[in-house]
């Protein structure tokens, strides 16, 4: 029976792989809960009438502004999802920090000689940071993916509310960008219609 401290010191970066595997296996039932068992293909759901795919195939349902009606929630959701998805690269910062703690650093001097440090700064701390970063990134990428957006939008069209964990992230900036996108789409469609008439 090894003592905890020796367990900690025997931790090696490749043990992360097992942690990652465990995280993946552990997250599967969660994904099965949130996603419908067999999502309908695009165009098969009644909510898809008038919907378009914009940018990198992001799903945007139809929206008609009405005085006193609901705001453009689906457009704001699209803006939120894209923003968060792009911001995922920020996970590179703790990842690099964890790597530089867990693995020996190398440096190149002015004569071009490369020297590798004899030991890493702190493999246990670095490994924990790495594991947390990778797990956090998986959760983040799973939360803001395209199929979840489609599922939320279809459920919203069917009258269900937006899940609270997404709804509380929406702010005015998302709605402003959604308005910009809707207007741009309307302009583009008007131009295409006119070109078809000619």
């Amino acid at each position: 029976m090894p003592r905890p401290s020796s367990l900690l010191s025997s931790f090696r970066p490749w043990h992360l792989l097992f942690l990652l595997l465990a995280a993946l296996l552990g997250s599967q039932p969660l994904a099965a809960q949130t996603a419908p068992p067999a999502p309908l293909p695009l165009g098969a759901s009644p909510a898809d009438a008038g919907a378009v795919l914009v940018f990198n195939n992001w799903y945007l349902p139809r929206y008609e502004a009405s005085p006193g009606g609901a705001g453009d929630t689906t457009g704001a959701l699209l803006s939120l999802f894209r923003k968060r998805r792009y911001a995922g690269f920020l996970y590179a910062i703790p990842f690099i920090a964890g790597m530089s703690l867990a693995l020996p650093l190398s440096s190149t001097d002015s004569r071009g000689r490369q020297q590798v440090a004899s030991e890493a700064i702190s493999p246990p701390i670095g490994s924990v940071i790495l594991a947390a970063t990778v797990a956090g990134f998986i959760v983040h990428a799973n939360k803001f993916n395209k199929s979840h957006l489609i599922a939320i939008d279809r459920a919203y069209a069917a009258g269900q509310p937006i899940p609270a964990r997404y709804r509380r992230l929406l702010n005015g900036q998302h709605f402003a960008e959604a308005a910009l996108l809707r207007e741009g789409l309307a302009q583009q469609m008007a131009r295409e219609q006119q070109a078809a008439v000619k």
Partner: protein
Amino acid sequence: MTKLLLFLLSLTLLASPARAQTPVPGEDLASQQLKQRLRGEYLHNDTAQAIITLYSRRQAGGVGWVIGAILSAVRIGTASSGTTTSYGGYSAGNSDGSSNVGAAFLIATPLVAYGVGKVLHYSNGHLEQVLTAYGAGQPLPRSLRRKLKPRFFQTPIVQYKSINAPPVKPLK
């Protein structure tokens, strides 16, 4: 470490957040709304649309030059100076430990100036002036006419794909 920081900085700048249509990195909402208003005013005029697209692209290009110049200046400025000469198996180095801030400044200044010049020349104010004059019936200046390439006419305002859904009863 500097390389990592540079890499992250370039990632930050290149990964533009969600924006509606114009590819200018860091363009604020007001500028996008201005372009959209102008596009709406000249909605069925292909030339005006192409001019707006041209200005958006050139603004993005100017920003790109500035970003690239700053990144290379940081890289050059933080690299240690010195020369290395190899004699057979030996290598003799000559390093005084100083940095190349002066060289970085010299190299980056004209590039930044070029980018800033581009941003200023293709500003939204100039765009509005050009479009107003064009809308009033004045001919386009020759310098601008030469720059309007077919690709600016073919760029859509927003690229989209429609989903082929079966016709169903309208949503409430």
